[in-house]
């Protein structure tokens, strides 16, 4: 079959302007997008740069977008993109900086972020002979997380990363997850602190796009939520977002609804003088507009006892 590829091109350097080049090649009916790219480089344009490694979908190195769909180019059949017209547009993965043509910068997009959480197990110093005795259920769950092949789809789908490139992203948080739930790791508390640092665990807006995008069903969003719960259970709530969640839940449990004054103070942190000082102008504005009654008294809502029972039931279920 004859197929025309419209391929994204960009020279190295920040100022280079992207463009497209067109290449018509003859391919077998079962050819993959990778076959097409290899043929273009081999026969038409030797300057075309793209990544290739396992050629079978094992490794995630060759992620690109074909007609807008993000996929491994080595397993994606050209024929699945040419049903309407014999043209395939090939672009780099969204949100990932481009180094040259289809070669994206995995380093800044993903590896640097993984590095933020000390991405290795700190084991108990060797001493005991023989393997550790561990339950299969815990190991099976870690294997699930480690089936991740760093394809970047969760990060590409993430709705925070396009507005904040420095957000740690779901892929790196899954590395944290793999380690935090490993009974052999000795620095869980430290790792949590690293993960929940600025632009970390608590910046996820739980839009569930990561879980929607993950091709291996690892369910990053659910795991991020579980890590937040575990952080609470361990008494780790250093981030203002963590304190916000904690105060929110405490207030609703206590009074049946939200105590907004207390929420603002507790989110900032009772010992955080700088943070509290920032609230003063906001409080003044609220007073001026009549949005903060004086004296400020937070009453229980009608039916608060019922709300408390619902929360207690949920807590028991999750215990």
């Amino acid at each position, binding site marked *: 079959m004859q197929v025309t590829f419209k391929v994204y091109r960009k020279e190295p350097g920040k100022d280079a302007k992207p463009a497209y080049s067109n290449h018509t090649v003859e391919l077998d009916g079962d050819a993959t997008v990778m076959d097409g790219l290899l043929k273009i480089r081999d026969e038409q344009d030797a300057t075309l740069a793209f990544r290739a490694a396992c050629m079978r979908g094992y*490794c995630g190195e060759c992620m690109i977008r074909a007609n807008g769909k993000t996929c491994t180019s080595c397993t994606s059949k050209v024929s699945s993109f040419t049903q309407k017209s014999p043209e395939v547009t090939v672009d780099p993965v969204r949100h990932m900086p481009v180094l040259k043509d289809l070669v994206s910068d995995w380093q800044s997009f993903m590896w640097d972020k993984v590095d933020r959480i000390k991405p290795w197990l700190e084991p108990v110093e060797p001493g005991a002979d023989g393997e550790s005795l561990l*339950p299969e259920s815990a190991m099976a769950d870690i*294997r699930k997380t480690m089936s991740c092949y760093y394809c970047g789809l969760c990060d590409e789908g993430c709705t925070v990363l396009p507005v904040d490139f420095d957000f740690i992203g779901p892929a790196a948080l899954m590395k944290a997850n793999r380690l935090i739930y490993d009974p052999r790791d000795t620095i869980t508390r430290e790792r949590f602190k690293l993960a929940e640092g600025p632009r970390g665990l608590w910046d996820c807006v739980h839009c569930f796009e990561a879980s929607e995008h993950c091709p291996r069903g690892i369910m990053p969003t659910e795991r991020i939520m579980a890590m937040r719960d575990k952080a609470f259970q361990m008494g780790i709530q250093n981030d203002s977002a963590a304190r916000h969640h904690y105060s929110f839940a405490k207030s609703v449990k206590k009074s049946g609804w939200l105590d907004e004054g207390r929420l603002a103070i507790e989110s900032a942190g009772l010992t955080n003088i700088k943070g509290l000082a920032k609230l003063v102008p906001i409080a003044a504005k609220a007073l001026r507009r009549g949005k903060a009654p004086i004296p400020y008294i937070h009453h229980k809502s009608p039916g608060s006892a019922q709300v408390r029972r619902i929360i207690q039931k949920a807590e028991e279920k999750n215990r």
Partner: protein
Amino acid sequence: MQEFDVVIAGGGATGLRAAIAAKRAGASVALLTKIHPLRSNSGLACGGLNAPLGRDDSAAAFAEDIMLAGDGINDRDVVRAFTESARDDVIWLEKMGAPFNRDTDGRLDRRSLGANRHQRACYADDWTGHIVLQVLYEQFQRSGAAMFDDAFVTSLTVEGSQCIGLTALGLKAGKLDSFSARAVVLATGGFTQLYQPSTASNGTTGDGQSLACAAGARLMDMEMVQFHPTVFPGRYALMITEAALAEGAQIVNQKGEQVVLSDGMSREKLCLAIKNALQNGGGPVMLDLRPIGKDKLAARFAQTSELVKAAAGLDIAKDPIPIAPAAHRPIGGIETNARGETSIPGLFAAGECACNGVNGAGRLAGNILTEAIVFGRTAGEAAAAFAKSSPKKTFPTSRLSDEEKRLAALVGDSSANAGDSLGKVQADLGQLMSERAGLVRDANSLQGALDGIRGLRERYSKLRVRNASMVFNYDLISCLETGALLNMAGAVAAAAQARKESRGAHNRTDFTAHDDTNCKCHTIVSLAQGALQVATKPLEA
């Protein structure tokens, strides 16, 4: 110029393990790799890694199985060292966080792969290589060794018969750099791309073997290329892990009748049995995974299911999968001893690029990852020890400029290629080697291979790289890789021609039996005045 005690080329399982060991031994370490470690070919090893952990198993029993698979030409002392270390090295991996499957007591569960007569392959469903690689990379990062990825090693620097470093092209900056080292470890992987179809990654092009040979090191048992029995055919053939057979899959014909009984058969024998079944005209031979059961397939063969679906459009829980043997991993490589020392002082090699005689003529299923962690560690430790005792030698700056000139000379006008291309040469080479120096060979086919390789070399010498920029110049990389593959092809065909017998992975239709009088030895290939020379080497005691 970069300076380190130990420089490791290759970021797969072996290279990572070597780096961890060398760093732990106190050396300053750099690891260079052409692709990111987590994308390396080690990830393709799915089924498990052997270690004698069972109550009724032992290092001696493990050694016995290796010797049987090796078909008479293993080096006993290397086998002994390997089997005695395997248990501790696998347990180390477990302690570092490998989430291997567990039995009901919480101990490491094990499978029996291929010709192992004990259940000794620890495993992580069918992600074993993928997960082991991640654990090794985690510990590599913990070690603090330096990493240079997107770095392609272009030459080894040998001065006064000692290896003192290497030159490497950084693809991102497009810059050639020199790495001065007291010891160099090659862990660059195999050369399975020599065959089409094959099971291996794009980058398994024999780079390290080719560089070592050019630098004066010797290659051993290059005729021994292991084929894998259960592979879904295609240009990029998809290996289906032998763990499937271990867990109950059957090899059947179209009617569903079992055509090959795989119980305890070595890979070499299984490949021939499947090839015969295919030739006997009974139609396609298939791997039926359904006897494993739906639950176990879902729990333990998720990756196989995903990849088979992508490659073949088939569902392993419903459809038998057509299979044929395909080139899998070389057994031969750079000649070393158990410590990874090559014939060049300061140059070490381990893993799939090396050959230390542990496997003889056939590799036991489940050994490749154990080899990576045992021999990776050993080579890393040996390199660090060598670095400590070796005085610092000056890296001549002229080596870098010479290498720059050599690479620049490969670049030329695209009109010179006259319709031919590196891709076409590689494809023709793959077909030639599969047909003439593949699973079965004879004197005629091998002569055809040698003649064919000569012709391809001529074509290759006329080709020019048509990209003058050095930044992510994959045309240049392809040129260097194709050159390495042609060197590998010559070595494989010459060694196969010299071994006039059948043994292990080497099946000759003109010499169908062992010849213990003349051939119970290793084959050695080396370069002398630019020409390949074949010799023999007696087995170690």
